[in-house]
């Protein structure tokens, strides 16, 4: 692996070399400029993404003379299994034998491949159909080539499991035999390509396909960003300003330079604010190995100008958010007139909820390597956003984008952190400082927790007026949280429509009078997107509050939740006031209250809702619609006399529409339960004097094997119709987990948790 990193690179040179000289492969020859190369129309979903989508088979399918099929994945693999799922779709329509399929990872090049930005739970949602068409087009070209070589009509030839079969005569030809001739044919018009009927699927919907990277991962052969090694590579760690917006005041590198192995100390300028994806700046120590770099950083003497956020304090800021949430704020949603409904209510309930900053904390911290040779930069990075990485790197280094190549490695977790390529820019900057020598920048865990793009901090205030029967007739919700917009624009004080569209402006409630407001909240740290984003605080607050209302009127929480959701019906999200709808056409993706009710019923049935539980145990339930999927969670907790908390069981029910890879859906839900349990029980980032107080996993507490929910049962709920469009999978499992756990704690103890994490709040 030394000297040249091979990440199953899909470059023509690498691929043809592997296939053998003179090999005929589907991808060689003139670019297939058919319809797939046209600018996609503006619209919703994948059509609205930067650089749109492609379904040209020559971009995604290569076949060697021996029949080996290489499928190209353009989405970043961070453990969600997208390399496997995308390949399943391509291979299925192609009629390839899975045993002869390998997956290559595309470099960052959206103008060639279409959008590669892997966030928003939309890899399959956006690319399922383009990949089906690409696979089917490749299959069609093979069939046509075989037919031509046999002198028979193309309609008489069918591809079947890696063979081309002339149906009347039974003659066969392998894929490898036909590939060369197929490559010379034009790509068929996408309107004429026959797609399989669902009953014909071989891999799509199957539970039998293991992860393509399993073998490499478990035998240590897989290459993550942090694993990259290049000939002559140097290693760097960076002392960054401890406070966001700060900068180096002075530094003395003398002691650092004396550390054996340290070769240079380089100052990186701080970014302007808004900083978006620019590095934070600081003092980089470059050495011959990572340990020397770390020791050099320890020896470095640096002082800091902490800048405008020097006094940022989580406790004080919480008080500020609470004060803001107790006054009217910017109106973002209204139905009816709450101020007229409240006076007539038989009962009034109010509550405030606090959700702290969180860190994505992917198990692989940010890491990237870069080198510059003859004015061209190559970077190797665990990035969720290869195109942004490429363009930003080019701009920072003063290069043309064509002169920057971003090799996308596997990602050891992402959760949104690796959508921001600041760490890749650091590698490029330091390589440039070293005359183009390869430099790898590694972030330690402390670096990751101290200098993150944190999930926002939030106070959610809710008030409800209930009628004589206990039904809510008035609902007021104020959400005060600094916005992600603060990394893109100067000093915004309100959340963006897409943040509000995550469980606030699109929340389905059977309540006649609803008012939602967004008071001001300035940002003092880098705010970034974290798995499921603003759905976390919104779901925690609304689902906790609904359970509180149920208790206030002596009702069963599950029945009450269903009553508040209301009857099965389709709701146009724009009628509620949502102007984001996850970027999807509201006509194609209305909100289906019936599907939400269904997952509640399934999760409740799964856990045995209503059963007797042992003393100290309690059941809680929550449901949330996000990323155009429907998820409900029922949790059982056990609280000991000393307040110790364990989670014996969680049932999670998901309706994500048709399931391409059920095993991956299960896996994502299981992971979401574990991550949500951490948010509920122990994880929080806090600040004093502008500095994050958590250093490592001894203070930022994520679940360990002994504290994770013991028994997680995933219920895959079929959509009401098989022709419904796909929903997201990566993120929707997370939002209802925390409120379900907190509601279960209340059932077990009578103690209502309104601030996260639970931590020591149950101690007696």
């Amino acid at each position: 692996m030394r000297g040249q990193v091979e990440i199953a690179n899909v470059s023509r040179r690498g691929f043809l070399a592997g296939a053998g000289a003179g090999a005929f492969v589907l991808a060689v020859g003139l670019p297939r400029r058919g319809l797939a190369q046209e600018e996609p129309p503006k619209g919703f979903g994948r059509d609205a993404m930067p650089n749109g989508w492609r379904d040209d088979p020559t971009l995604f399918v290569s076949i060697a003379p021996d029949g080996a099929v290489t499928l190209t994945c353009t989405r970043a693999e961070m453990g969600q299994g997208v390399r496997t799922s995308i390949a399943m779709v391509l291979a299925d329509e192609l009629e390839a034998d899975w045993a002869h399929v390998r997956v290559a990872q595309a470099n960052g090049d959206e103008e060639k491949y279409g959008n590669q930005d892997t966030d928003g739970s939309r890899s399959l949602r956006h690319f399922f159909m383009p990949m089906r068409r690409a696979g089917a087009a490749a299959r069609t070209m093979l069939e046509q080539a075989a037919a031509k070589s046999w002198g028979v009509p193309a309609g008489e030839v069918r591809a079947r499991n890696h063979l081309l079969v002339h149906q009347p005569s039974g003659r066969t030809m392998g894929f490898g035999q036909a590939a060369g001739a197929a490559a010379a044919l034009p790509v068929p018009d996408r309107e004429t390509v026959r797609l399989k009927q669902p009953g014909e699927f071989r891999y799509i919907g199957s539970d039998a396909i293991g992860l393509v990277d399993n073998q490499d991962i478990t035998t240590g052969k897989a290459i993550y960003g942090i694993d990259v090694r290049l000939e002559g590579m140097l290693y760097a760690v960076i002392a960054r300003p401890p406070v966001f917006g700060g900068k180096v005041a002075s530094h003395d590198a003398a002691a650092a330079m004396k550390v054996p192995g340290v070769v240079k100390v380089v100052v990186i300028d701080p970014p302007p604010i808004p900083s978006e994806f620019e590095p934070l700046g600081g003092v980089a120590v470059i050495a011959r190995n990572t340990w020397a770099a770390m020791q050099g950083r320890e020896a470095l003497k640096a002082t800091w100008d902490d800048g405008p956020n020097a006094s940022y304090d989580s406790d004080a800021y919480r008080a500020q958010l609470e004060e803001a949430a107790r006054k009217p704020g910017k109106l973002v949603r209204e139905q009816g007139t709450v101020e007229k409904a409240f006076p007539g209510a038989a009962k009034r309930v109010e509550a405030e909820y606090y959700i702290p900053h969180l860190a994505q904390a992917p198990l692989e911290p940010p890491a990237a390597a870069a080198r510059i040779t003859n004015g061209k930069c190559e970077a190797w990075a665990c990035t969720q956003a290869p195109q942004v990485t490429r363009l930003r790197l080019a701009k920072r280094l003063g290069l043309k984008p064509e002169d920057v190549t971003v090799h996308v490695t596997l990602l050891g977790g992402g959760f949104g952190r690796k959508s921001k390529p600041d760490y890749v820019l650091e590698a490029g900057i330091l390589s440039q400082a070293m005359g183009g020598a390869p430099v790898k920048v590694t972030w330690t865990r402390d670096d990751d927790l101290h200098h993150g793009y944190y999930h926002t901090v939030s106070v959610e205030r809710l008030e409800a007026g209930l009628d004589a029967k206990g039904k809510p007739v008035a609902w007021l919700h104020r959400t005060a949280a600094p916005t992600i917009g603060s990394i893109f624009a100067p000093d915004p004080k309100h959340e963006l429509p897409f943040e509000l569209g995550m469980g606030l402006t699109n929340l389905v409630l059977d309540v006649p009078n609803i008012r939602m407001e967004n008071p001001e909240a300035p940002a003092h740290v880098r705010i970034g997107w974290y798995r499921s984003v603003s759905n976390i605080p919104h779901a925690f607050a609304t689902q906790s509050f609904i359970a509180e209302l149920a208790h206030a009127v002596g009702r069963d929480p599950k029945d009450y939740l269903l009553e508040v959701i209301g009857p099965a019906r389709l709701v146009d999200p724009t009628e509620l006031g949502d102007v984001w709808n996850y970027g999807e056409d509201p006509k194609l993706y209305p909100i289906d209250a019936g599907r939400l009710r269904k997952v509640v019923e399934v999760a409740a049935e799964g856990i045995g809702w209503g059963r007797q539980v042992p003393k100290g145990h309690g059941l809680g339930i929550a449901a949330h619609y996000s990323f155009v999927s429907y998820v409900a969670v029922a949790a059982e907790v056990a609280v000991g006399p000393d307040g110790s908390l364990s989670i014996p069981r969680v049932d999670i029910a998901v309706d994500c529409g048709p399931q391409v890879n059920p095993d991956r859906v299960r896996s994502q839900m299981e992971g979401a339960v574990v991550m949500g349990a951490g948010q509920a029980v122990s994880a929080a980032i806090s600040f004093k004097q502008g500095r994050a107080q958590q250093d490592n996993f001894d203070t930022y507490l994520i679940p360990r094997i002994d504290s994770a929910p013991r028994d997680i049962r995933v219920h895959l709920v079929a959509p009401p119709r098989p022709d419904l469009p796909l929903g997201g999978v990566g993120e929707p499992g997370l939002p209802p987990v925390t409120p379900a756990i907190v509601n279960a704690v209340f059932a077990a103890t009578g103690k209502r948790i309104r601030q996260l994490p639970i931590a020591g709040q149950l101690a007696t």
Partner: protein
Amino acid sequence: MRALDKVLPAILVPALLALAGPAAAGPCMDRITALEGRLDKEAEVAISTSSGGQGVAGAREGQAMEGTGGSPAADPAVPYQREGKEAQAVGQAAAAGEGGDKVMQAKAALNRARALDQQGDAQGCEQQVAQAESHLGGE
């Protein structure tokens, strides 16, 4: 008596209408209906000019909201695609009610107007419709 016959119905009609409750279709509701069609279209435009990706949505909406009077920022902070194309995308988002922000507020005001109209509060309804129109920049 004939004159009174004519006058009385004229007097009675508004009174009868008031007794019947809010107008099923009055001037304010007409304005709501007219504006609603526009709002529905603008909401869809706002959706399509943002995006399903969190980063792109954050960048486009953030830039769109910060533009003065709805004008997009001259240089988008984040090149998710070539700068000219992304500047165009940010401009489209800004034109779509500042990333949808104005559309969202207009919808809230219009929903409130409808509720007030149903409660017989014509003046309140008119005020909220005016508010909705001001969020959209009027026509």
